[in-house]
Protein backbone atom coordinates (compact mmCIF):
# COMPACT_ATOMS: atom_id res chain seq x y z
CA UNK A 1 0.00 0.00 0.00
CA UNK A 2 1.48 3.30 -1.09
CA UNK A 3 1.58 5.69 1.86
CA UNK A 4 -0.31 8.94 1.95
CA UNK A 5 2.90 10.90 1.97
CA UNK A 6 4.40 9.24 -1.06
CA UNK A 7 1.18 9.76 -2.95
CA UNK A 8 1.31 13.42 -2.12
CA UNK A 9 4.90 13.70 -3.29
CA UNK A 10 4.12 11.87 -6.50
CA UNK A 11 1.17 14.12 -7.22
CA UNK A 12 3.14 17.32 -7.00
CA UNK A 13 6.18 15.90 -8.76
CA UNK A 14 4.98 16.72 -12.31
CA UNK A 15 4.40 20.36 -11.39
CA UNK A 16 7.74 20.65 -9.67
CA UNK A 17 9.51 19.06 -12.61
CA UNK A 18 7.77 21.37 -15.05
CA UNK A 19 8.64 24.44 -13.05
CA UNK A 20 12.18 23.25 -12.57
CA UNK A 21 12.85 22.61 -16.23
CA UNK A 22 10.86 25.36 -17.84
CA UNK A 23 11.33 28.13 -15.37
CA UNK A 24 14.03 27.71 -12.77
CA UNK A 25 16.60 26.07 -15.01
CA UNK A 26 16.34 28.81 -17.66
CA UNK A 27 16.51 31.43 -14.92
CA UNK A 28 19.66 29.87 -13.57
CA UNK A 29 21.04 29.78 -17.08
CA UNK A 30 20.23 33.45 -17.40
CA UNK A 31 22.13 34.16 -14.18
CA UNK A 32 25.04 32.18 -15.48
CA UNK A 33 25.10 34.04 -18.79
CA UNK A 34 24.97 37.36 -17.04
CA UNK A 35 28.36 36.56 -15.51
CA UNK A 36 29.91 34.70 -18.39
CA UNK A 37 31.89 36.47 -21.08
CA UNK A 38 31.53 34.24 -24.14
CA UNK A 39 34.43 35.71 -25.99
CA UNK A 40 36.99 35.49 -23.28
CA UNK A 41 35.55 32.40 -21.60
CA UNK A 42 35.68 33.95 -18.16
CA UNK A 43 33.30 35.01 -15.42
CA UNK A 44 32.99 38.71 -14.92
CA UNK A 45 30.80 41.42 -13.50
CA UNK A 46 31.54 43.81 -16.31
CA UNK A 47 28.09 43.35 -17.85
CA UNK A 48 26.38 44.39 -14.65
CA UNK A 49 28.63 47.39 -14.39
CA UNK A 50 27.97 48.30 -17.98
CA UNK A 51 24.24 48.11 -17.59
CA UNK A 52 24.20 50.05 -14.35
CA UNK A 53 26.55 52.80 -15.47
CA UNK A 54 25.59 53.24 -19.09
CA UNK A 55 23.34 56.29 -19.49
CA UNK A 56 21.57 54.73 -22.47
CA UNK A 57 20.22 51.93 -20.34
CA UNK A 58 19.44 54.32 -17.53
CA UNK A 59 17.27 56.40 -19.88
CA UNK A 60 15.31 53.38 -20.93
CA UNK A 61 14.81 52.34 -17.32
CA UNK A 62 13.59 55.78 -16.31
CA UNK A 63 11.31 55.98 -19.33
CA UNK A 64 9.83 52.58 -18.49
CA UNK A 65 9.31 53.65 -14.89
CA UNK A 66 7.46 56.75 -16.04
CA UNK A 67 5.15 54.70 -18.18
CA UNK A 68 4.60 52.19 -15.39
CA UNK A 69 3.72 54.93 -12.90
CA UNK A 70 1.32 56.57 -15.35
CA UNK A 71 -0.31 53.19 -15.89
CA UNK A 72 -0.70 52.65 -12.15
CA UNK A 73 -2.23 56.04 -11.53
CA UNK A 74 -4.57 55.84 -14.49
CA UNK A 75 -5.84 52.36 -13.71
CA UNK A 76 -6.29 53.38 -10.08
CA UNK A 77 -8.32 56.44 -11.01
CA UNK A 78 -10.50 54.36 -13.32
CA UNK A 79 -11.05 51.28 -11.21
CA UNK A 80 -11.56 52.79 -7.78
CA UNK A 81 -14.93 54.40 -8.61
CA UNK A 82 -16.05 51.28 -10.42
CA UNK A 83 -15.12 48.99 -7.53
CA UNK A 84 -16.82 51.38 -5.10
CA UNK A 85 -19.97 51.39 -7.19
CA UNK A 86 -19.98 47.63 -7.46
CA UNK A 87 -19.66 47.03 -3.76
CA UNK A 88 -21.82 49.86 -2.46
CA UNK A 89 -24.69 50.13 -4.88
CA UNK A 90 -24.83 46.93 -6.83
CA UNK A 91 -26.55 43.89 -5.56
CA UNK A 92 -26.83 40.35 -6.76
CA UNK A 93 -27.31 40.12 -10.48
CA UNK A 94 -26.08 43.57 -11.35
CA UNK A 95 -22.89 43.12 -9.39
CA UNK A 96 -22.16 39.77 -10.99
CA UNK A 97 -22.84 41.21 -14.43
CA UNK A 98 -20.46 44.09 -13.83
CA UNK A 99 -17.79 41.70 -12.68
CA UNK A 100 -18.33 39.64 -15.82
CA UNK A 101 -18.25 42.73 -18.03
CA UNK A 102 -14.90 43.79 -16.65
CA UNK A 103 -13.16 40.46 -16.63
CA UNK A 104 -14.35 38.32 -19.54
CA UNK A 105 -12.55 40.27 -22.26
CA UNK A 106 -9.38 39.16 -20.58
CA UNK A 107 -10.15 35.54 -21.28
CA UNK A 108 -9.19 36.28 -24.85
CA UNK A 109 -5.52 35.98 -25.67
CA UNK A 110 -3.83 39.24 -24.92
CA UNK A 111 -1.88 39.33 -28.15
CA UNK A 112 -5.12 39.21 -30.10
CA UNK A 113 -6.56 41.93 -27.93
CA UNK A 114 -3.48 44.07 -28.47
CA UNK A 115 -3.91 43.78 -32.23
CA UNK A 116 -7.63 44.47 -31.93
CA UNK A 117 -6.89 47.55 -29.88
CA UNK A 118 -4.37 48.68 -32.45
CA UNK A 119 -6.95 48.40 -35.24
CA UNK A 120 -9.50 50.23 -33.14
CA UNK A 121 -7.08 53.05 -32.43
CA UNK A 122 -6.18 53.29 -36.11
CA UNK A 123 -9.86 53.76 -36.89
CA UNK A 124 -9.96 56.56 -34.38
CA UNK A 125 -6.95 58.13 -35.98
CA UNK A 126 -4.48 57.22 -33.27
CA UNK A 127 -1.31 55.78 -34.72
CA UNK A 128 1.53 54.02 -32.92
CA UNK A 129 3.07 56.34 -30.42
CA UNK A 130 3.00 57.47 -26.84
CA UNK A 131 -0.79 57.88 -26.61
CA UNK A 132 -1.47 54.48 -28.13
CA UNK A 133 1.10 52.93 -25.82
CA UNK A 134 -0.45 54.42 -22.67
CA UNK A 135 -3.97 53.50 -23.75
CA UNK A 136 -2.86 49.97 -24.45
CA UNK A 137 -1.14 49.63 -21.09
CA UNK A 138 -4.13 50.95 -19.21
CA UNK A 139 -6.45 48.66 -21.12
CA UNK A 140 -4.30 45.63 -20.43
CA UNK A 141 -3.78 46.19 -16.72
CA UNK A 142 -7.24 47.23 -15.57
CA UNK A 143 -8.21 43.81 -14.18
CA UNK A 144 -5.01 43.61 -12.17
CA UNK A 145 -6.00 46.79 -10.40
CA UNK A 146 -9.75 46.26 -10.31
CA UNK A 147 -9.88 42.80 -8.79
CA UNK A 148 -7.69 43.40 -5.72
CA UNK A 149 -9.51 46.66 -4.98
CA UNK A 150 -12.88 44.99 -5.45
CA UNK A 151 -11.82 42.15 -3.17
CA UNK A 152 -10.78 44.62 -0.48
CA UNK A 153 -13.94 46.65 -0.71
CA UNK A 154 -16.14 43.57 -0.75
CA UNK A 155 -15.15 42.94 2.86
CA UNK A 156 -17.02 46.03 3.93
CA UNK A 157 -20.00 45.12 6.08
CA UNK A 158 -23.10 46.23 4.20
CA UNK A 159 -24.36 48.71 6.73
CA UNK A 160 -21.14 50.63 7.19
CA UNK A 161 -22.02 53.25 4.64
CA UNK A 162 -25.50 53.57 6.13
CA UNK A 163 -23.97 53.99 9.57
CA UNK A 164 -21.56 56.65 8.33
CA UNK A 165 -24.36 58.52 6.59
CA UNK A 166 -26.62 58.59 9.62
CA UNK A 167 -23.66 59.97 11.55
CA UNK A 168 -23.54 62.84 9.12
CA UNK A 169 -20.88 61.80 6.62
CA UNK A 170 -21.27 63.41 3.22
CA UNK A 171 -19.62 62.12 0.06
CA UNK A 172 -16.17 63.49 0.89
CA UNK A 173 -16.15 62.05 4.40
CA UNK A 174 -17.41 58.72 3.10
CA UNK A 175 -14.56 58.48 0.63
CA UNK A 176 -11.80 59.72 2.86
CA UNK A 177 -12.76 57.99 6.09
CA UNK A 178 -14.43 54.79 4.98
CA UNK A 179 -13.96 53.77 1.36
CA UNK A 180 -10.30 54.53 0.80
CA UNK A 181 -9.15 52.99 4.10
CA UNK A 182 -11.02 49.82 3.26
CA UNK A 183 -9.72 49.77 -0.28
CA UNK A 184 -6.14 50.47 0.74
CA UNK A 185 -4.86 46.88 0.90
CA UNK A 186 -6.29 46.29 -2.57
CA UNK A 187 -4.86 49.54 -3.86
CA UNK A 188 -1.42 48.56 -2.67
CA UNK A 189 -1.59 45.07 -4.04
CA UNK A 190 -2.94 46.31 -7.34
CA UNK A 191 -0.40 49.08 -7.62
CA UNK A 192 2.52 46.79 -6.88
CA UNK A 193 1.25 44.27 -9.37
CA UNK A 194 0.63 46.77 -12.14
CA UNK A 195 3.89 48.63 -11.54
CA UNK A 196 6.09 45.58 -11.70
CA UNK A 197 4.30 43.92 -14.56
CA UNK A 198 4.06 46.98 -16.75
CA UNK A 199 7.74 47.70 -16.23
CA UNK A 200 8.82 44.75 -18.34
CA UNK A 201 5.80 44.58 -20.65
CA UNK A 202 6.83 43.55 -24.17
CA UNK A 203 3.78 43.27 -26.39
CA UNK A 204 2.10 46.63 -25.88
CA UNK A 205 5.21 48.78 -26.33
CA UNK A 206 6.21 46.79 -29.41
CA UNK A 207 2.82 46.86 -31.10
CA UNK A 208 1.50 50.21 -30.06
CA UNK A 209 4.54 52.20 -29.03
CA UNK A 210 6.09 52.87 -32.40
CA UNK A 211 9.22 54.95 -31.96
CA UNK A 212 8.17 55.75 -28.41
CA UNK A 213 7.90 52.08 -27.59
CA UNK A 214 11.45 51.31 -26.59
CA UNK A 215 10.98 50.31 -22.96
CA UNK A 216 12.64 47.66 -20.81
CA UNK A 217 10.71 44.80 -22.35
CA UNK A 218 11.73 45.53 -25.95
CA UNK A 219 15.25 46.41 -24.76
CA UNK A 220 15.83 43.05 -23.14
CA UNK A 221 14.23 41.34 -26.09
CA UNK A 222 16.49 43.18 -28.50
CA UNK A 223 19.61 42.46 -26.50
CA UNK A 224 19.03 38.77 -26.13
CA UNK A 225 17.13 37.69 -29.19
CA UNK A 226 17.87 40.26 -31.81
CA UNK A 227 21.19 41.76 -30.88
CA UNK A 228 23.03 38.67 -29.65
CA UNK A 229 24.05 40.53 -26.52
CA UNK A 230 23.04 37.72 -24.26
CA UNK A 231 25.13 38.75 -21.34
CA UNK A 232 23.99 42.35 -21.19
CA UNK A 233 20.39 41.33 -21.72
CA UNK A 234 20.66 38.73 -19.00
CA UNK A 235 22.27 41.18 -16.60
CA UNK A 236 19.54 43.71 -17.23
CA UNK A 237 16.83 41.11 -16.78
CA UNK A 238 18.34 39.89 -13.52
CA UNK A 239 18.69 43.43 -12.19
CA UNK A 240 15.07 44.25 -12.96
CA UNK A 241 13.89 40.96 -11.46
CA UNK A 242 15.83 41.41 -8.25
CA UNK A 243 14.63 45.00 -7.85
CA UNK A 244 11.04 43.95 -8.52
CA UNK A 245 11.16 41.17 -5.96
CA UNK A 246 12.73 43.50 -3.40
CA UNK A 247 10.06 46.13 -4.04
CA UNK A 248 7.32 43.58 -3.63
CA UNK A 249 8.78 42.31 -0.37
CA UNK A 250 9.27 45.80 1.00
CA UNK A 251 5.75 46.85 0.00
CA UNK A 252 4.30 43.78 1.67
CA UNK A 253 6.29 44.32 4.86
CA UNK A 254 5.60 48.00 5.06
CA UNK A 255 1.87 47.77 4.50
CA UNK A 256 1.04 44.48 6.15
CA UNK A 257 -0.23 46.33 9.21
CA UNK A 258 -2.98 47.90 7.15
CA UNK A 259 -4.81 44.63 6.77
CA UNK A 260 -7.78 44.43 9.13
Amino acid at each position, binding site marked *: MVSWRSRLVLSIAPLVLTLATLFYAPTLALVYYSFYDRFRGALTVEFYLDVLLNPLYANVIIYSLNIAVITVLATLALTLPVAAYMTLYSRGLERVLLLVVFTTPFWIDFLLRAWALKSLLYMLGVREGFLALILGMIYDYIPFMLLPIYASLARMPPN*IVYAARTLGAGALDLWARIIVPYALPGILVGSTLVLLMSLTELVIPTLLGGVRGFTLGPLIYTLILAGDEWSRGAALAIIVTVLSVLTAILAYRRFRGLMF
Partner: protein
Amino acid sequence: MAGAEVRFEDVWKSYGRVVALREVTLTAQGGRITVLLGPSGCGKTTLLKIAAGLLQPDRGRVYFNDLDYTDVPAERRDVGMVFQDLALFPHMSVFDNIAFGLRVRGIRGLELERRVKEMLDLVGLDRSFYNRRVTELSGGQQQRVALARALVIEPKVLLLDEPLAHLDYKVKQRLLEEIRRIQRSLRITTIYVTHDQLEAMSVADVVAVMREGSVVQVGPPREVYENPKDLYVASFFGDANIVDSKFAGLNSEGLVALRLEDVILNPNESVDIVYEGVVEDVVFQGAFVSLEVNVNGRVLKLLVPRRDFAREDVSVGSRVRVGWRLSNVRGFNGVMA
Protein backbone atom coordinates in the same frame (compact mmCIF):
# COMPACT_ATOMS: atom_id res chain seq x y z
CA MET B 1 -31.62 66.03 24.59
CA ALA B 2 -35.35 65.96 24.27
CA GLY B 3 -36.59 64.18 21.23
CA ALA B 4 -38.49 65.21 18.17
CA GLU B 5 -41.85 63.70 17.38
CA VAL B 6 -41.67 61.57 14.27
CA ARG B 7 -44.82 61.28 12.23
CA PHE B 8 -45.38 59.00 9.23
CA GLU B 9 -48.28 59.97 7.02
CA ASP B 10 -49.67 57.52 4.52
CA VAL B 11 -46.27 56.03 3.73
CA TRP B 12 -45.97 53.52 0.92
CA LYS B 13 -42.82 51.70 -0.22
CA SER B 14 -42.33 48.97 -2.78
CA TYR B 15 -39.36 46.98 -3.98
CA GLY B 16 -40.19 46.07 -7.52
CA ARG B 17 -43.50 44.28 -7.28
CA VAL B 18 -43.26 43.60 -3.55
CA VAL B 19 -45.13 46.11 -1.42
CA ALA B 20 -43.08 46.54 1.73
CA LEU B 21 -45.17 49.26 3.32
CA ARG B 22 -48.75 50.16 2.62
CA GLU B 23 -50.56 53.22 3.90
CA VAL B 24 -48.56 53.49 7.11
CA THR B 25 -49.66 56.31 9.35
CA LEU B 26 -47.98 56.34 12.71
CA THR B 27 -46.67 58.81 15.26
CA ALA B 28 -43.65 58.16 17.44
CA GLN B 29 -44.16 60.49 20.35
CA GLY B 30 -41.36 62.78 21.45
CA GLY B 31 -39.29 61.43 24.30
CA ARG B 32 -40.85 57.94 24.21
CA ILE B 33 -39.83 54.51 23.04
CA THR B 34 -42.03 53.30 20.21
CA VAL B 35 -41.50 49.67 19.30
CA LEU B 36 -42.23 48.35 15.82
CA LEU B 37 -43.05 44.71 16.39
CA GLY B 38 -43.59 42.12 13.71
CA PRO B 39 -42.19 39.04 11.96
CA SER B 40 -39.46 39.17 9.31
CA GLY B 41 -40.63 40.86 6.17
CA CYS B 42 -43.40 42.88 7.75
CA GLY B 43 -41.75 46.15 6.78
CA LYS B 44 -40.54 47.34 10.16
CA THR B 45 -36.92 47.77 9.10
CA THR B 46 -38.02 49.53 5.92
CA LEU B 47 -40.06 51.98 7.98
CA LEU B 48 -37.06 52.57 10.22
CA LYS B 49 -34.81 53.30 7.25
CA ILE B 50 -37.37 55.76 5.95
CA ALA B 51 -37.28 57.46 9.34
CA ALA B 52 -33.50 57.59 9.01
CA GLY B 53 -33.58 59.05 5.53
CA LEU B 54 -31.73 56.08 4.05
CA LEU B 55 -34.79 55.25 1.99
CA GLN B 56 -37.36 57.52 0.41
CA PRO B 57 -41.02 56.53 0.50
CA ASP B 58 -42.81 56.09 -2.81
CA ARG B 59 -45.78 57.93 -1.42
CA GLY B 60 -46.51 59.73 1.81
CA ARG B 61 -44.55 62.09 4.01
CA VAL B 62 -42.36 61.96 7.10
CA TYR B 63 -42.45 64.78 9.63
CA PHE B 64 -40.05 65.65 12.43
CA ASN B 65 -41.85 68.00 14.80
CA ASP B 66 -44.23 68.95 12.01
CA LEU B 67 -41.39 69.83 9.62
CA ASP B 68 -41.46 67.88 6.37
CA TYR B 69 -38.30 65.78 6.40
CA THR B 70 -39.30 63.40 3.63
CA ASP B 71 -36.70 64.65 1.17
CA VAL B 72 -33.98 65.39 3.68
CA PRO B 73 -31.12 62.89 3.17
CA ALA B 74 -29.83 60.80 6.04
CA GLU B 75 -26.62 62.74 6.52
CA ARG B 76 -28.55 65.91 7.28
CA ARG B 77 -31.27 64.43 9.39
CA ASP B 78 -29.48 64.30 12.71
CA VAL B 79 -30.63 60.81 13.64
CA GLY B 80 -28.66 58.23 15.57
CA MET B 81 -29.01 54.69 14.32
CA VAL B 82 -27.89 51.33 15.65
CA PHE B 83 -27.94 48.54 13.09
CA GLN B 84 -28.63 44.88 13.52
CA ASP B 85 -25.08 43.97 12.58
CA LEU B 86 -23.85 47.03 14.49
CA ALA B 87 -21.82 48.27 11.52
CA LEU B 88 -18.97 49.47 13.71
CA PHE B 89 -15.93 50.69 11.79
CA PRO B 90 -13.44 47.84 12.20
CA HIS B 91 -10.48 49.86 11.07
CA MET B 92 -10.97 52.28 13.95
CA SER B 93 -10.63 52.06 17.73
CA VAL B 94 -13.52 52.41 20.16
CA PHE B 95 -12.69 56.07 20.65
CA ASP B 96 -12.52 56.79 16.93
CA ASN B 97 -15.76 54.98 16.25
CA ILE B 98 -17.60 57.11 18.74
CA ALA B 99 -15.77 60.25 17.68
CA PHE B 100 -16.69 59.73 14.02
CA GLY B 101 -19.96 61.64 14.07
CA LEU B 102 -18.34 64.52 15.93
CA ARG B 103 -15.30 64.72 13.67
CA VAL B 104 -17.49 64.80 10.62
CA ARG B 105 -19.18 67.83 12.16
CA GLY B 106 -15.86 69.57 12.65
CA ILE B 107 -15.61 69.06 16.38
CA ARG B 108 -12.10 68.30 17.59
CA GLY B 109 -9.63 68.69 20.43
CA LEU B 110 -10.71 68.95 24.05
CA GLU B 111 -14.41 69.19 23.38
CA LEU B 112 -14.28 66.07 21.24
CA GLU B 113 -12.53 64.18 24.00
CA ARG B 114 -14.90 65.39 26.63
CA ARG B 115 -18.02 64.37 24.75
CA VAL B 116 -16.68 60.96 23.76
CA LYS B 117 -15.65 60.18 27.32
CA GLU B 118 -18.98 61.38 28.65
CA MET B 119 -20.73 59.00 26.28
CA LEU B 120 -18.48 56.08 27.21
CA ASP B 121 -19.41 56.66 30.85
CA LEU B 122 -23.07 56.77 29.97
CA VAL B 123 -22.98 53.39 28.28
CA GLY B 124 -20.86 51.88 30.99
CA LEU B 125 -17.47 51.45 29.32
CA ASP B 126 -14.38 52.56 31.20
CA ARG B 127 -11.12 54.16 30.09
CA SER B 128 -9.44 50.87 29.32
CA PHE B 129 -11.64 50.60 26.26
CA TYR B 130 -10.66 53.84 24.56
CA ASN B 131 -7.94 52.52 22.31
CA ARG B 132 -9.09 48.98 21.87
CA ARG B 133 -9.97 47.75 18.42
CA VAL B 134 -13.69 47.20 18.16
CA THR B 135 -13.09 43.75 16.75
CA GLU B 136 -11.62 42.66 20.07
CA LEU B 137 -14.76 43.37 22.07
CA SER B 138 -17.53 41.04 23.14
CA GLY B 139 -21.02 41.32 21.64
CA GLY B 140 -22.38 43.27 24.57
CA GLN B 141 -19.44 45.67 24.58
CA GLN B 142 -19.74 46.27 20.85
CA GLN B 143 -23.40 47.01 21.32
CA ARG B 144 -22.56 49.66 23.89
CA VAL B 145 -20.06 51.24 21.51
CA ALA B 146 -22.68 51.30 18.77
CA LEU B 147 -25.11 53.02 21.13
CA ALA B 148 -22.50 55.53 22.25
CA ARG B 149 -21.60 56.29 18.64
CA ALA B 150 -25.21 57.00 17.77
CA LEU B 151 -25.94 59.09 20.87
CA VAL B 152 -22.80 61.22 21.05
CA ILE B 153 -24.02 63.44 18.22
CA GLU B 154 -27.08 64.31 20.31
CA PRO B 155 -29.54 63.26 17.63
CA LYS B 156 -33.18 64.22 17.55
CA VAL B 157 -34.23 60.61 17.24
CA LEU B 158 -32.65 57.27 18.15
CA LEU B 159 -33.35 54.42 15.77
CA LEU B 160 -32.61 50.83 16.77
CA ASP B 161 -32.85 47.95 14.33
CA GLU B 162 -33.04 44.69 16.29
CA PRO B 163 -30.03 45.79 18.34
CA LEU B 164 -30.07 42.77 20.62
CA ALA B 165 -30.55 40.13 17.97
CA HIS B 166 -27.25 38.31 18.28
CA LEU B 167 -26.71 38.47 22.00
CA ASP B 168 -26.85 35.91 24.79
CA TYR B 169 -29.95 35.94 26.94
CA LYS B 170 -28.30 37.40 30.02
CA VAL B 171 -26.43 40.06 28.04
CA LYS B 172 -29.66 40.89 26.27
CA GLN B 173 -31.53 41.39 29.54
CA ARG B 174 -28.84 43.65 30.91
CA LEU B 175 -28.60 45.76 27.76
CA LEU B 176 -32.37 46.07 27.59
CA GLU B 177 -32.29 47.65 31.02
CA GLU B 178 -29.40 49.90 30.01
CA ILE B 179 -31.25 51.09 26.92
CA ARG B 180 -34.29 51.92 29.01
CA ARG B 181 -32.17 53.72 31.58
CA ILE B 182 -30.32 55.74 28.97
CA GLN B 183 -33.45 56.61 27.09
CA ARG B 184 -35.18 57.71 30.27
CA SER B 185 -32.32 59.94 31.28
CA LEU B 186 -31.89 61.52 27.85
CA ARG B 187 -35.59 61.54 27.07
CA ILE B 188 -34.77 60.96 23.43
CA THR B 189 -37.43 59.82 20.98
CA THR B 190 -36.65 56.22 20.21
CA ILE B 191 -37.98 53.90 17.54
CA TYR B 192 -37.06 50.30 18.25
CA VAL B 193 -37.56 47.50 15.75
CA THR B 194 -37.82 43.89 16.87
CA HIS B 195 -39.55 40.59 16.20
CA ASP B 196 -39.20 39.54 19.82
CA GLN B 197 -42.36 40.26 21.79
CA LEU B 198 -40.62 39.93 25.13
CA GLU B 199 -38.14 42.62 24.14
CA ALA B 200 -41.05 44.74 23.00
CA MET B 201 -42.86 44.30 26.27
CA SER B 202 -39.77 45.12 28.29
CA VAL B 203 -38.88 48.32 26.57
CA ALA B 204 -41.88 49.90 24.87
CA ASP B 205 -43.88 52.89 25.96
CA VAL B 206 -45.95 52.27 22.86
CA VAL B 207 -45.94 49.16 20.71
CA ALA B 208 -47.00 49.12 17.05
CA VAL B 209 -47.74 45.61 15.84
CA MET B 210 -47.04 45.26 12.14
CA ARG B 211 -47.97 42.70 9.57
CA GLU B 212 -47.20 42.56 5.85
CA GLY B 213 -46.52 46.24 5.50
CA SER B 214 -49.31 47.61 7.66
CA VAL B 215 -49.61 48.72 11.24
CA VAL B 216 -52.32 46.55 12.78
CA GLN B 217 -52.54 47.92 16.30
CA VAL B 218 -50.85 50.64 18.29
CA GLY B 219 -50.89 51.25 22.02
CA PRO B 220 -49.15 50.78 25.34
CA PRO B 221 -47.97 47.17 25.72
CA ARG B 222 -50.47 46.28 28.43
CA GLU B 223 -53.39 47.61 26.48
CA VAL B 224 -52.42 45.76 23.30
CA TYR B 225 -51.85 42.60 25.27
CA GLU B 226 -55.15 42.72 27.10
CA ASN B 227 -57.23 44.01 24.21
CA PRO B 228 -55.81 42.65 20.97
CA LYS B 229 -57.68 43.94 17.96
CA ASP B 230 -57.61 40.72 16.01
CA LEU B 231 -56.41 37.14 15.97
CA TYR B 232 -53.05 38.09 14.54
CA VAL B 233 -52.24 40.50 17.35
CA ALA B 234 -53.59 38.13 19.94
CA SER B 235 -51.29 35.34 18.81
CA PHE B 236 -48.27 37.43 17.91
CA PHE B 237 -48.11 39.63 20.98
CA GLY B 238 -48.39 37.12 23.77
CA ASP B 239 -49.61 33.63 23.01
CA ALA B 240 -53.20 32.43 22.84
CA ASN B 241 -55.44 29.48 22.15
CA ILE B 242 -57.60 30.24 19.13
CA VAL B 243 -60.92 28.46 19.47
CA ASP B 244 -64.44 29.01 18.23
CA SER B 245 -66.56 31.17 20.44
CA LYS B 246 -69.22 28.55 21.18
CA PHE B 247 -66.57 26.27 22.64
CA ALA B 248 -65.30 29.15 24.72
CA GLY B 249 -68.78 29.59 26.12
CA LEU B 250 -69.98 32.57 24.16
CA ASN B 251 -73.28 32.73 22.44
CA SER B 252 -71.93 33.89 19.10
CA GLU B 253 -70.08 32.90 15.95
CA GLY B 254 -66.46 33.29 15.02
CA LEU B 255 -63.09 32.68 16.56
CA VAL B 256 -61.89 33.94 19.90
CA ALA B 257 -58.59 33.97 21.77
CA LEU B 258 -57.82 32.61 25.20
CA ARG B 259 -54.48 33.61 26.69
CA LEU B 260 -52.49 30.61 27.92
CA GLU B 261 -52.32 31.94 31.46
CA ASP B 262 -56.09 32.49 31.54
CA VAL B 263 -56.79 28.75 31.17
CA ILE B 264 -56.78 27.43 34.75
CA LEU B 265 -55.69 23.91 35.69
CA ASN B 266 -58.08 22.06 38.00
CA PRO B 267 -59.79 25.29 38.97
CA ASN B 268 -61.32 25.62 42.40
CA GLU B 269 -61.81 29.34 42.19
CA SER B 270 -64.76 30.69 40.33
CA VAL B 271 -64.57 30.07 36.60
CA ASP B 272 -67.43 30.16 34.18
CA ILE B 273 -66.54 27.29 31.88
CA VAL B 274 -64.99 23.94 32.76
CA TYR B 275 -63.96 21.02 30.59
CA GLU B 276 -62.33 17.68 31.24
CA GLY B 277 -59.34 16.55 29.30
CA VAL B 278 -56.16 14.48 29.17
CA VAL B 279 -52.69 15.90 29.56
CA GLU B 280 -50.61 15.33 26.44
CA ASP B 281 -47.44 17.23 27.21
CA VAL B 282 -45.71 18.84 30.17
CA VAL B 283 -42.76 21.19 29.67
CA PHE B 284 -40.95 22.81 32.56
CA GLN B 285 -40.06 26.37 31.70
CA GLY B 286 -38.71 27.81 34.89
CA ALA B 287 -41.27 30.15 36.40
CA PHE B 288 -44.05 28.45 34.46
CA VAL B 289 -44.99 24.98 33.37
CA SER B 290 -46.39 24.68 29.87
CA LEU B 291 -49.12 22.06 29.45
CA GLU B 292 -50.98 20.68 26.48
CA VAL B 293 -54.39 19.27 27.36
CA ASN B 294 -56.62 17.43 24.93
CA VAL B 295 -60.26 18.39 25.43
CA ASN B 296 -62.53 16.36 23.16
CA GLY B 297 -60.07 16.50 20.31
CA ARG B 298 -59.05 20.13 20.78
CA VAL B 299 -55.59 20.70 22.17
CA LEU B 300 -55.46 23.62 24.58
CA LYS B 301 -52.23 25.15 25.79
CA LEU B 302 -51.91 26.28 29.39
CA LEU B 303 -49.29 28.23 31.24
CA VAL B 304 -49.38 27.23 34.90
CA PRO B 305 -47.31 29.00 37.57
CA ARG B 306 -44.74 26.63 39.00
CA ARG B 307 -46.17 26.80 42.52
CA ASP B 308 -49.68 25.92 41.36
CA PHE B 309 -48.38 23.06 39.28
CA ALA B 310 -46.47 21.63 42.19
CA ARG B 311 -49.69 21.32 44.18
CA GLU B 312 -51.29 19.04 41.60
CA ASP B 313 -50.08 15.57 40.83
CA VAL B 314 -50.17 15.93 37.09
CA SER B 315 -48.19 14.19 34.40
CA VAL B 316 -48.67 13.04 30.84
CA GLY B 317 -51.82 10.97 30.69
CA SER B 318 -53.49 12.44 33.77
CA ARG B 319 -57.11 13.39 33.58
CA VAL B 320 -57.54 17.02 34.52
CA ARG B 321 -60.08 19.81 34.43
CA VAL B 322 -59.45 23.10 32.67
CA GLY B 323 -61.52 26.23 32.95
CA TRP B 324 -61.70 29.96 32.37
CA ARG B 325 -63.69 33.04 33.05
CA LEU B 326 -65.79 34.43 30.26
CA SER B 327 -64.37 37.87 30.91
CA ASN B 328 -60.95 36.60 29.80
CA VAL B 329 -62.19 35.45 26.42
CA ARG B 330 -60.98 37.81 23.74
CA GLY B 331 -63.43 38.28 20.94
CA PHE B 332 -62.94 40.40 17.83
CA ASN B 333 -65.08 42.32 15.43
CA GLY B 334 -68.07 42.58 17.67
CA VAL B 335 -67.85 39.15 19.23
CA MET B 336 -68.34 40.08 22.84
CA ALA B 337 -67.93 38.21 26.12
